[in-house]
C-alpha cells in the first residue's frame, strides 16, 4: 500500500494542473487578508473557498486521474496484490497529496492574523479533501465497465 501511495503521489506531484491549483490557493489565502480590513471577513472568504473550490477540484481531479490511469490500474490488478490494497493505496495517494497541497497553498491563511480560527478552517479542508476524493473514487464504481 505504501508503495502504491508513493508512486501515485509522485505522479500527481508532477501534474501541472495540481501545481496551478496550489498556486491559486496560495494566492487566494495571501490576498484575502490583505484586501479585507476585517480579518473575520477574510476568513469567511477563505471558508467559501474551502466549501466550494476544494471539493470541486478534488472530485474533478480524482475522476480525471482515475480515467487517465484506467489501463494502468488494469495492469496493476494483474499483479499479485489484493484489490482492496490497490484501491486503498490509490485513495490514500490522492488524499495525502491533496491534503498536502491544501495545507501548503492555504498556509498564509492558517497562520496569519486569526490564529485561533485558522487551524479550524485548515481542519475543515482536511476533512473535506478525503471525502470528495472519495466521491471521485466511488463515482468510478458506477462506470459500466
Amino acid at each position, binding site marked *: 500500500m505504501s508503495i*502504491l501511495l508513493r508512486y501515485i503521489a509522485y505522479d500527481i506531484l*508532477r501534474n501541472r494542473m495540481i501545481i496551478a491549483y496550489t498556486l491559486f490557493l496560495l494566492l487566494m489565502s495571501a490576498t484575502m487578508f490583505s484586501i479585507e480590513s476585517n480579518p473575520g471577513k477574510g476568513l469567511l472568504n477563505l471558508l467559501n473557498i474551502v466549501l466550494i473550490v476544494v471539493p470541486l477540484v478534488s472530485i474533478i481531479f480524482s475522476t480525471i486521474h482515475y480515467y487517465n490511469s*484506467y489501463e494502468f490500474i488494469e495492469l496493476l490488478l*494483474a*499483479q*499479485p496484490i489484493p484489490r482492496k490494497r490497490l484501491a486503498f493505496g490509490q485513495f490514500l495517494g490522492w488524499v495525502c497529496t491533496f491534503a498536502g497541497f491544501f495545507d501548503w497553498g492555504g498556509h498564509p491563511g492558517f497562520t496569519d492574523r486569526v490564529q485561533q480560527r485558522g487551524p479550524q478552517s485548515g481542519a475543515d479542508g482536511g476533512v473535506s479533501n478525503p471525502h470528495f476524493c472519495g466521491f471521485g473514487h466511488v463515482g468510478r464504481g458506477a462506470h459500466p465497465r
Partner: protein
Amino acid sequence: MIQTQNLSKHFGKLCALNNVSVSLQKGKGVSLIGPNGSGKTTFIKCLLGMVIPDAGRICFNDQPILRDSWDYRKQIGYMPQIGRYPDNMRVRQVFDLMTDLRKDSHCGPLDEELIEEFGLKNSFDKPMRTLSGGTRQKVSACLAFLFDPAVLVLDEPTAGLDPLAAEALKAKVLREQQKGKLVLMTSHILNDLEELTTDVMYLVEGDLLFFESVENILERTEETRFAKAIAKIMAQQGKISSTPQRKTIAL
C-alpha cells in the same frame, strides 16, 4: 495447469463467453483466435480475476480462482492490449514500482533479457508520456517477462512493434515455451502466431468453436500453412453465420 469449466459471462444482453471449458497444459503455446468481439479479452480477464464470470469456474494448478484470490497471480505475467502508463512517471519508475509490488512473491534474479534486446535501458529516464506507442508496448512486454512467471498471458503482443522487436519478442516467447511455460496469446496476425502455437482456441461470439492442436487443424483443412488453414476455417464460419439458420447447424 489452467482448467476452465463452463465459463460464462454476459454483459447485459451481450454474451461474451458461453460455456467455455478448456484445459491448458504446461509447455503449450495456446493461441486465442476469433473475430473482433468474440470474447478473447474477456476470457483473459476472467483468468486474471478482473472480470468475475457469471457461471462456471477456473482452476489454476487445481486451485479454484475465487472472487478475492490473488495469490495465484504470482505465477502470471500479463501484457495488456493497450499499454498506457501514468504520464509523469519515468520508465525506470514503472519498473521499480512493479519490482516493489512483486518483491514479496518473487525471489531470484529478474529476467532482463528482453530489456537488453529492445535496448530499453537508453530510454529509462524518459517520462512515459514522451514514449511512442511501440516503445510503450516494449515496456509492457518487458514487464510481463520480468518476473519469470510460469504462465504468460499476452494480449496482442506484436501489435505496434517494429519487425525487429517483434522477432525478438517471438524468439523470447519460444524460448520460454521450451522451458516448459504456458503461453496464452491472442493476435490477429496469424503469421506471428504460426511459430509459437501448439494449440488453437477458436472463439466466435463467446462460443468455443474448437480447441485443437495445430497438427489436427492442418490435417482437417488439408492445408500446409497455419495461417491458410485458419483463414479457411474463418471463411467457412463466415458463410455459415451469414445464413439465417446459423444456430441450428451443428459444428
